[in-house]
């Protein structure tokens, strides 16, 4: 895999991010905003209390022509195998008024090419390039590699949903203060894999509509001893959300994502809104 030559100095990075988000916004598909009230747990270095956040998710994708396997009959086959290639651009993250108090500070910009196949279950696999940064853009890195997502509905109940998403990436840190402080040599690339396990269980009772659980795990391969001792070689983040009517939700999250400001635990009350 080749290293990107994109301009990553601090002056150009915001412009790059704005441009990419603009492409995703105007290009097509989906633009979702999720206002939320975030309550980050305080720690010695940060005085985070309750902060208002705005989650964003801008997506643009293009799919290849699909096969015409049964185009000689008018019978509708619900078991037909699905397969196609897809190219995507995406920007997502959570913004808060005071960036230093953002408990979900990870911002992501991604481009990817994938192959999708679906029959008894659905699988999506491909290659990706991703820029990860915290909201202030002081800490940022590139990631590129391979990814795989599996999904299946109806495993434990009629309409529950289970999905597993895996990424194997080479990380190229542009700036990473915590990492740089621990390593004597200059920042170098390293390998990391991450996974997200997602489960959704529908509820019919009042007032719950459904319960969703998401668990994310990041691990650096063969991390230097200093990185391991500082606990920067692995990150865990889990979130359980109780969905009420009218898209209101109550969420409890624990753990942290890369670049997070030690948000060990926080409770979130919010609602989902799409532009």
């Amino acid at each position, binding site marked *: 895999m080749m290293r990107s030559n994109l301009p990553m100095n601090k002056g150009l990075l915001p412009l790059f991010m704005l441009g990419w988000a603009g492409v995703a916004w105007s290009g097509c*598909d*989906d633009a*979702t905003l999720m206002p939320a009230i975030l309550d980050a747990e305080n720690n010695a270095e940060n005085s985070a209390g309750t902060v208002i956040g705005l989650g964003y*998710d801008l997506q643009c994708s293009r*799919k290849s022509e*699909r*096969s*015409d*396997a*049964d*185009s000689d*009959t*008018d*019978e*509708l*086959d*619900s*078991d*037909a195998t*699905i*397969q*196609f290639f897809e190219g995507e651009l*995406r920007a*997502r993250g959570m913004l808060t008024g005071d960036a230093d108090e953002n408990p979900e500070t990870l911002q992501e910009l991604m481009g990817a090419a*994938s192959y*999708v196949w*679906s029959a008894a*279950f*659905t*699988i*999506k696999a491909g290659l990706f390039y991703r820029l990860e940064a915290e909201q202030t853009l002081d800490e940022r890195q590139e990631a590129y590699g391979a*990814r795989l*997502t*599996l*999904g*299946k*509905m109806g495993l434990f109940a*009629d*309409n529950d*949903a289970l*999905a597993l*998403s895996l990424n194997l990436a080479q990380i190229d840190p542009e700036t990473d203060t915590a990492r740089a402080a621990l390593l004597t040599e200059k920042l170098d690339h390293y390998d990391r894999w991450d996974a*997200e396990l*997602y489960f*959704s269980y*529908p*509820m*019919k009772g009042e007032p719950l*509509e*459904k319960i969703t659980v*998401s668990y994310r795990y990041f691990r650096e391969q063969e991390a230097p001893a200093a990185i391991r001792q500082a606990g920067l070689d692995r990150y865990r983040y889990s*979130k359980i*959300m109780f*969905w009420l*009517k009218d*898209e209101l*939700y109550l969420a409890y999250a624990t753990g942290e994502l890369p670049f997070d400001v030690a948000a060990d635990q926080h409770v979130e009350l919010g609602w*989902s809104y*799409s*532009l």
Partner: protein
Amino acid sequence: MAYQWQANLACIATYKTLEADDGLDQFEEADIPFSKAADVAMRRLRFYPSGTDNADIIEVLSIEMARRFVKLLVKRYSVKKQKKEISSQQIIMRIADVLAKPKATLTELAEVVDDAIKFADE
């Protein structure tokens, strides 16, 4: 002219398949009656993966849901493809594309169903 939510086979089948307890059970009729279902967004359906912002997970689960939706349509109604040259997987994917968009409405889903699927009584 934009597609209208009305008491035709496509809209009724879309609504019933999503709402029925022995269907996909995505909402309750008491909360969302047929007459008020036109602007209901996909993100309000119980299957929608609102608990994650992972687009790949949303996409694969939308394909799973689209297949279940079509399977129930075939089971509950006498349906065929509107056009022979459009493949079954294209129809499932068109439905999945709508299901994956959080702001897409039941009217948009019924429009795809009407355009792609022919009901026996039509």
